[in-house]
């Protein structure tokens, strides 16, 4: 790797931020690690597929959500096509959560945080929490009876913790903005970081692979 060998870098070059960034990427995330075409032979389990399916479900959540927000919040209440796109969004979210939770339990029983992967796990938990918040703002912006009742009911919990003073679940505009912009961008960013971290280290070895067997 470039950064491992001095390969004639002058002191001036090594002070270049650009060069240092490039070398750091070369070392920690070369294309061969980002998109490997080979995996350890034990990566044969279905459990590894849960993470990928979660990405796929997220992709459908985002695509259907972009169509919904492009057409505006009234569309899906009075058009059949709109209602269908809303249903697609709704069920993609359910699938997203199902597979994210399966992935979470899978990673738990594989102890996927071993060998320096604790940060990957922790970002995963943050993704889980932010996803719950995003889904919550989504349920609040449905503009139907469910949304009304969830708002009235949820305000007490938010207010009791002081959150309601800033995050007003009765304010449709605030919840809608958070739901369609800020939170999805946050989730996407976190998922990219999560996957880059996984690819940078490669998947973890089986439990007890260290020592004698590795």
């Amino acid at each position: 790797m470039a950064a491992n060998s001095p390969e004639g870098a002058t002191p001036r070059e090594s002070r270049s931020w650009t060069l240092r960034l490039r070398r750091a990427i070369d070392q920690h995330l070369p294309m061969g690690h980002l998109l490997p075409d080979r995996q350890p032979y034990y990566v044969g389990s279905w459990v590894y597929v849960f993470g990928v399916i979660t990405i796929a479900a997220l992709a459908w959540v985002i695509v259907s959500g972009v169509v919904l927000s492009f057409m505006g919040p009234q569309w899906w209440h009075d058009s059949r096509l709109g209602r269908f796109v809303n249903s697609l969004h709704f069920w993609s979210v359910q699938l997203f959560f199902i597979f994210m939770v399966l992935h979470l339990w899978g990673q738990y029983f594989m102890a996927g945080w071993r060998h320096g992967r604790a940060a990957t796990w922790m970002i995963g938990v943050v993704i889980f929490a932010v996803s719950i918040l995003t889904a919550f703002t989504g349920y609040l912006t449905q503009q139907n009876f469910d949304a009304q009742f969830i708002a009235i009911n949820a305000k007490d919990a938010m207010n009791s913790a002081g959150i309601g003073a800033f995050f007003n679940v009765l304010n449709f505009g605030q919840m809608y903005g958070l739901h369609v912009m800020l939170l999805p961008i946050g989730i996407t960013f976190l998922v990219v970081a999560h996957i880059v971290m996984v690819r940078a280290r490669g998947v973890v070895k089986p439990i007890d692979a260290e020592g004698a067997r590795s």
Partner: protein
Amino acid sequence: MRSMGATQEEYYRGVRMVPYDLVKELALAIAGIGVLAVLVAAILSSPDVAPVTIAAWAQQDPVDLVTTATNELAGSTTSAGYGPPYNSVGAGQSWGPIAPQKWFGVRIPVDSANTFVIQPLQRASFSNTDLGTALSAWQKATPDQQTKWLDAYSKALPNATVKDGTVAVAAGDYGPLPVMMSNLLGVAQAGGLDGLLVINGRFYQTDYTLPLLFMGDGTYLSGLAAQAHLTGSQWGMMNETGSYPGQTWLWLYTMWYQVPPFTSTTGFLGFNSSNADLGIIILMTVLTAALALVPFIPILRDIPRWVPIHRLIWRQYYAPRKGAIRS
């Protein structure tokens, strides 16, 4: 950790590597989930029960609307006695010195009696002299007198009768209240109250705090919610109207509302039903932090080693001989 390896190459040294097509796997996953989601969406659709308006409430259950409005004047509704962030009447929830509801103060001021009853009536009294007279009689009366009228009227309302959408109570000394309430009911039934509470002096509007608080003070909307199995004591967060799934991932959060100390009045360690919301949020924050810190928490991080589920997941690896790593 000796076995961590400085680079992936070192980490995997001696591990047999086999071809694996990640991009194809992702493409297939996107296609598969797409087909599944389209099918489920087409077959099962999604929940969309029309929202309740104040007009519908006033038409379907006029006595409840009038009772709620009367209670707003008496200051006995949920919103009137709420405390922060709407007003400083109640103290809000706290746990020992931890009182975040109080800390941030009144950030979304709501004066229930004025906002939900007096101001809408003032608008409506524009060309209505009867109402104008009643309103000024109300405002000129002493608080004592107002309370007497409110008490009498509140006692009469449970036996009120509804005829042609108007509410009638037995004769009694209610001062100007019957005139005020019948006008408020009329405005509400015509949809005027929906508009007045939402617009609240603005034109563009995306904030439904006032009408939702007002509807939350009544029993009509919560009654419909109970019929649809949405309330907190019915694990309501996990359902939507119809048989649609709600936020099922909140199962743990909503479970705490069904068990002691959060259901009991005596409580435990200062947690009881009166500060259940705060207690449960604190508990869930601690549990979420613990989930994030699992890699560092003894026992929690060791369970996967003890429970042989990993032997199923990595079957090939643990299978005798066949899968042994060659070095």
